[in-house]
């Protein structure tokens, strides 16, 4: 029983280190091209919650709609769909 617990703790420690590594990787390395500029994952998470980010025809990330928080209109491709201020 004790041996089983030790191996469980080792596995849990490895899993925690692995997931912490994934978070560090997202903070330090991950960059996404958004309307011609590089954005970190944190910035992209924030943009997806406020600006209806989507993929443009060339595969780049664009924000075709008005931000509900800042009112800034995205500089990406012109939107063809009807504007909708709140995604919900």
């Amino acid at each position: 029983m004790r041996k089983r617990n030790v191996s469980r703790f080792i596995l849990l420690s490895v899993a925690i280190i692995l997931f912490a590594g994934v978070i560090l990787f997202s903070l330090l390395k991950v960059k996404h091209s958004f309307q011609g500029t590089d954005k970190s994952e944190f910035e992209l998470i924030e943009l997806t919650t406020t600006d209806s980010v989507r993929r443009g025809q060339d595969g780049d990330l664009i924000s075709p709609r008005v931000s509900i928080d800042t009112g800034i209109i995205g500089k990406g491709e012109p939107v063809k769909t009807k504007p909708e201020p709140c995604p919900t």
Partner: protein
Amino acid sequence: MLVLNSYFLQLRFACVPALHCHSCPLSIFACPVGVLVNFSALRILPFFAIGMLGIVGVVSGRLVCGWLCPFGLIQDVLHKIPVRKIRIPRKFAYTKYLVLIGLVFAVPFFFPNSRFTFCRVCPAATLEASIPWRIMGVSSGYGFSFFFRVAVLLGVLVLVVILNRGFCRLLCPLGAIFSLFNRFSLFRIRLTKKDCNDCGLCARVCPVGLNPAKEMYSPECIRCLKCTSTRHLKFGIK
């Protein structure tokens, strides 16, 4: 609070491990399920959300469902309404995995502009964002999608009145993610064998219909810790 939140409490770059709507006027953080849906639609791997959900799951399993989730609190309150309650077969619990795979990953990935991604039918989103935004006059659309969302919300509210934690047990994709960690998480419920006399008291207090003395590592356990009040079960690291 609304004014404070608009200017100072905007931390939506980070998601917290609880189902809520980041479109809510009072929301401070991003919803992890919303981040998964958005990133699926953009076909990007959400490293931060995966790491955060993984660490919380490994440490505590579904403890978040029992103690942190605002929609869980709403369910607990609504279930106190005195009407006839129902029980459901255990196999229905698998529907939440279908919701996770279908509405959180597959539909947004293959149909990014679909009306039927999880966020667009999420009852928490309707309650916390769709209805408040319309009351505040920011969103004015009363089309099919709004009434569909309200119908889903009403259906879920009726469900949780007659079935304790019905949304958590049958539909919640975040609960489905955390349930994968319940068996081996660091903190978990354990039986103090010398005290257990098979009295069935813990099964009577369990809100999700488990027998905690026999199913303490069940993926359905929301770690509300009501069973630990019987003193036959303990919550800890061992």
